[in-house]
């Protein structure tokens, strides 16, 4: 009997003890997807046959006594920004509609080697530009807590899939908060590892110096188990960190005892207050109280340059993105559109027509902004300055980590807003990433852990925990402690309070 609400660690234990097979587990999740994904729209592509074949192979391995990893046989969903050999990879864009990569991203290769059946590809804002998945060319994902609301973004599909029990695990990518913010607004766990901690090979780049793939799960321990599988040095990514991943599973287990004695927690003064919803701030203060009760020492730290993080980010990101997206030129792969009324168009004209037809509004906005920021005469004033601010933000982190082992803040300033509410107001949309962006600019790791429901709307909020670069184990320890202590108060996981989604609501 398959319990879809079981944790991935629990499913792995059931597989190891022979209480369930991977085929049963995978089939149950595929059935759940068939039942509820019409409402949630977390998936852009479901690979039923492939997943079941991988599950059968996993069962054979386990029967022969040779599990490939702890999570061998536990199914997973992969964000559509990761190249998957033989499976469509669109990045939520028309320009890549129908593209089937001839190779696997390193993360995907490691998932396959570890025996995790891949259920399918999850929805996202086009090329990961957005905080709501509404910028997907294939339609928005709906938040399982309230189908009229956004699931966060850009990785709203991965977070919603996990929150709706369509998958026990998922892969996300986080450039400015795209793992953590969806985690916060869907009541799930998301981790952005230290920059370079997980290979970017085969991840379709948005902004190379900011992008980082990581786990999207329902519990902190599940995230640690997955992180240990996908993390570690990859010679095919020259920015990959050449040292072993710290023991994250041990850190999560240590944290789960709920003991935070000796841990110094820094509350970042600049990440709270104005612009933050009351209910989100109330849950945040409670989380801090819980950590204090568990023995943590709390200090307030100031990171004055964080107020400029959003501006720096919206110069650096478009600059890198406009260069990266230049490869979509209608020549080697992806869409090719011929301009109307020209019997013999030039390559450049085909390129222009294709990029107009293939890119959505947000992608066009950012390409143009990036082209502007990089253009001669403005480069020093915008891109150059943004890179200096990046230095200041890193220095703020360094100073703060002299007084605290980890820093905490609300993950997102608000709970999930209504679909359509900010779609054509780019600046309002960008503000969702206020608290998550500094970590990307400095390359430090961060986690979002569910920390309750906001009083005014009954929707989930998240606690963000940040640690120094390479100290990913700290976010797992503190995240697991907060999770354990809060679940004790609630009498179970936060997702127990979410609607069950029977699939007939629409």
């Amino acid at each position, binding site marked *: 009997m398959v319990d879809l609400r079981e944790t991935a660690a629990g499913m792995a234990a059931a597989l190891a003890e022979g209480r369930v097979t991977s085929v049963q587990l995978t089939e149950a999740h595929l059935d759940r997807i068939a039942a509820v994904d019409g409402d949630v729209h977390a998936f852009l592509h479901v690979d039923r046959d492939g997943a079941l074949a991988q599950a059968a192979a996993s069962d054979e391995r386990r029967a022969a006594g040779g599990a490939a990893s702890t999570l061998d046989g536990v199914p997973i969903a992969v964000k559509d920004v990761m190249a998957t050999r033989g499976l469509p990879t669109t990045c939520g864009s028309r320009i890549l509609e129908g593209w089937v990569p001839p190779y696997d991203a390193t993360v995907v290769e490691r998932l396959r080697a570890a025996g995790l059946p891949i259920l399918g590809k999850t929805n996202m804002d086009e090329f990961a530009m957005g905080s709501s998945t509404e910028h997907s060319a294939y339609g928005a994902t709906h938040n399982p807590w309230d189908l009229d609301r956004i699931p966060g973004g850009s990785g709203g599909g991965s977070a919603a899939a996990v929150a709706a029990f369509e998958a026990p695990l998922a892969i996300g990518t986080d450039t400015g908060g795209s793992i953590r913010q969806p985690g916060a607004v869907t009541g799930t766990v998301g981790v952005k590892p230290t920059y370079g901690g997980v290979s970017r090979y085969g991840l379709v780049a948005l902004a190379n110096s900011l992008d980082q793939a990581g786990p999207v799960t329902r519990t902190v321990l599940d995230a640690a188990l997955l992180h240990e599988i996908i993390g570690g040095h990859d010679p095919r990514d020259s920015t990959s960190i050449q040292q072993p991943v710290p023991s994250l599973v041990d850190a999560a287990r240590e944290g789960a005892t709920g003991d935070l004695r000796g841990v110094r927690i820094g509350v970042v003064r600049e990440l709270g207050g104005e612009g933050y919803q009351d209910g989100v701030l109330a849950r945040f203060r409670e989380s801090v109280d819980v950590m204090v009760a568990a023995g943590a020492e709390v200090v307030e730290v100031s990171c004055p340059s964080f107020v400029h993080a959003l501006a720096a980010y919206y110069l650096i990101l478009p600059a890198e993105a406009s260069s990266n997206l230049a490869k979509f030129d209608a020549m080697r792969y992806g869409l090719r559109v011929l301009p109307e009324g020209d019997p013999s168009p*030039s390559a450049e004209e085909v390129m222009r027509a294709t990029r107009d037809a293939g*890119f959505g509004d947000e992608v066009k906005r950012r390409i143009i902004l990036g082209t502007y920021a990089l253009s001669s*005469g403005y480069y020093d004033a*915008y891109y150059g300055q943004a890179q200096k601010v*990046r230095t200041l933000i890193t220095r703020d982190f360094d100073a703060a980590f002299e007084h605290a082992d980890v820093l905490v803040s609300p993950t997102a300033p608000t709970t999930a807003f209504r679909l359509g509410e900010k779609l054509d107001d780019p600046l309002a949309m960008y503000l969702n990433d206020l608290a998550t962006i500094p970590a990307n600019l400095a390359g430090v790791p961060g986690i979002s852990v569910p920390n309750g429901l906001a009083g005014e709307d009954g929707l989930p909020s998240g606690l963000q925990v940040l640690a120094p670069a390479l100290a990913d184990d700290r976010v797992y320890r503190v995240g697991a402690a907060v999770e354990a202590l809060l679940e004790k108060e609630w009498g179970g996981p936060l997702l127990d309070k979410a609607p069950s989604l029977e699939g007939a609501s629409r």
Partner: protein
Amino acid sequence: MPDTPATITRDEVAHLANLARIDLSDAELDHLAPQLSVILESVAAINEVASADVPPTSHPLPLTNVFRDDVVTPCLTAEEALSGAPESEQQRFSVPRILGEEA
């Protein structure tokens, strides 16, 4: 360094779209130009933040060039590399004419 106007005109957007090889329609220009001005205004303040002595950061972690041994490793076959091409011919990408009519 020129003064950095915190707005961007419709003509400038058209010029930038041209540089970025995107055919924007008139309706798109009308829609995007004011939005880009709003975004630009909000990021323009960054000019005054960092003094000249602050070094720029291009990358979050200090890294130097990474090399691997020069050995042959498996790679894509020509068929695989061409599998996503809009058009191919004789194991090559087939592209529209590169030169102008008058060339």
